[in-house]
């Protein structure tokens, strides 16, 4: 018969749970754990892909004929859809975090001698992979529909880098949001009320210049506008203008991401540790 309790010798207890190596290792293990959920909870990936696809179809084939933007509407729309998807990652990361925190397994992780930071970083990395996968799917869908981004190799790398930074920043914002609100339903509900209008006012589907004074003023400073304008200026010859961030969308986008990360990362970690003793 096997003894119930294993000897303590194989343990990692000799090493400090706070060492950076432990953080990397624990993050990797917990990221793997998040990724295993993707094929097993297909509705989560559907959340990330179906919505952009519905917007693509609606705007391309229902509203598109009435929108005149000076270039082919397909080329105009897709950068907007990508930026909108990016913004929605706040909601999916927030929902995933709130769901995770409401389940007993996080208590188990917290009671283990691991680097507790890894519970959050594992969550962020898992979300990152999920968002990238979702984005790949709807970009592929766009290409299948005939979207041809006017992209140089350098521009492609720049776009990929900006998107990665954007997803990363928005996921951290979502993690903080999820930790603060705690109820997955409330995160989803509140998220849509805030994020959906911001993504619509950001010049995503129609030019900001044609908007009424109030939405135009909001759009000129809406962070999502910087994302839309960045993606659009890299994939078309259109260049936005009207405010500092629309004149310099890439710079503004990097700025927004840095601000989001600088605010959300420490607050999220503090919030996560607040209910814990050490």
């Amino acid at each position, binding site marked *: 018969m096997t003894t119930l309790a294993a000897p303590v010798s194989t*343990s990692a207890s000799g090493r400090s749970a706070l060492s950076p190596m432990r953080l990397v290792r624990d993050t990797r293990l917990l990221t793997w754990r998040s990724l295993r959920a993707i094929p097993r909870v297909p509705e989560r990936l559907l959340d990330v892909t179906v919505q952009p696809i519905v917007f693509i179809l609606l705007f391309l084939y229902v509203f598109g004929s009435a929108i005149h933007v000076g270039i082919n509407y397909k080329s105009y729309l897709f950068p907007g859809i990508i930026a909108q998807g990016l913004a929605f990652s706040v909601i999916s990361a927030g929902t995933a975090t709130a769901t995770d925190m409401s*389940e*007993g397994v996080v*208590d188990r992780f917290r*009671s283990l001698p691991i680097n507790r930071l890894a519970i959050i970083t594992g969550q962020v990395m898992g979300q990152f992979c999920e968002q990238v996968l979702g984005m790949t799917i709807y970009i592929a869908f766009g290409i299948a529909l005939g979207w041809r981004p006017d992209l140089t190799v350098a521009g492609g790398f720049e776009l990929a880098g900006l998107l990665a930074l954007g997803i990363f920043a928005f996921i951290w914002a979502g993690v903080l949001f999820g930790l603060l609100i705690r109820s997955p339903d409330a995160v989803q509900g509140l998220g849509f009320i805030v994020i959906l209008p911001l993504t619509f006012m950001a010049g995503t589907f129609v030019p900001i210049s044609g908007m009424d004074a109030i939405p135009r003023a909001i759009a000129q400073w809406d962070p999502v506008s910087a994302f839309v304008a960045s993606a659009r200026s890299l994939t078309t010859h259109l260049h936005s203008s009207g405010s500092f961030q629309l004149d310099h969308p890439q710079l503004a986008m990097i700025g927004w991401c840095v601000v989001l990360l600088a605010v959300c990362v420490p607050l999220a970690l503090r919030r996560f540790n607040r209910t814990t003793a050490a």
Partner: protein
Amino acid sequence: MTDIAIRAEGLTKRFGDFVAVDALDLQVPDGTVVSLLGPNGAGKTTTVRMLATLIAPDGGRAWVGGHDVVRDGARVRELISLTGQFAALDKHLTARENLVLMAQLRGYNGRAARRRADELLERFDAGDFRDRLVKNLSGGERRRIDLAAGLIERPQVLVLDEPTTGLDPRSRQVVWSTVRELVAEGVTLLLTTQYLEEADALADRVVLLDRGREVAAGTPAELKSRVGEQRVDVIAADGEAFGRLEALLWEHFTITTLPEQRTVSVSAPDEVADLARVADAVTQAGIPVDEVALRRPTLDDAFLALTGHTAAESEKAAGADGADSDREPEEAHA
């Protein structure tokens, strides 16, 4: 002198105005089993969550293996293993993947983790459902995997929070036998339960909690002697039979009666032997009865005897004070 595995002094936790744990003192000597007994809202879960460093106390101090739970949480987590009231498993992973992950997080490499997971699956007789997703397991199966996940390494201190609440009697027996084996191997155990029977079966010492305070403590035998002993309840078939029953049993035994329930309670210090004697007497006299049963004192009996109010009243009071159980309101569980 024996070493003290868990020590708490004046441990206190408030949630808003609600005092979940109120200046609790606790000592669990090495290698012993101590049970925190009490109804919902008594502060059991909050206490063990503070000891396992999951929440910070608002007052008092606690040490596990000599390490302060607030200042030295990382060391405490190396010694303690908590299995909570709700299965702490990833429901999207299989039973085996969960155990492998927990082992890896404890520092095992992939191969050693898989080997340890397989040992535990075998030990917990979980081979049949090792590759099923946790979300598809029954409550009893989940609890077994949950216990296994807490035993990847031999913990010096094992904390089980209501390990058998909601389990069928068979799964309860599996949990009890597992716990007994661990204790035989020298593991120190702090157990919370709502069942007096469970505390009696497993614990060396029982601490009865009510509204975050200790109301009584002692060995199960001491506590039971204060609560009242076992009894045989005989329920007469009708009013006439009840009269005859009372007259018959009064002659031979110490009895109390509950006329409204047509019940005669016979004190039964010899347990089954007394049950047999009572049953014999009733059968020979030919009195029609609905039920003859040996009753053990329940948590309710203990509460009534030791606190002067019922467990349900205490639960209600805890609820009225703003907490529906002894979990902190902020922490929702699935």
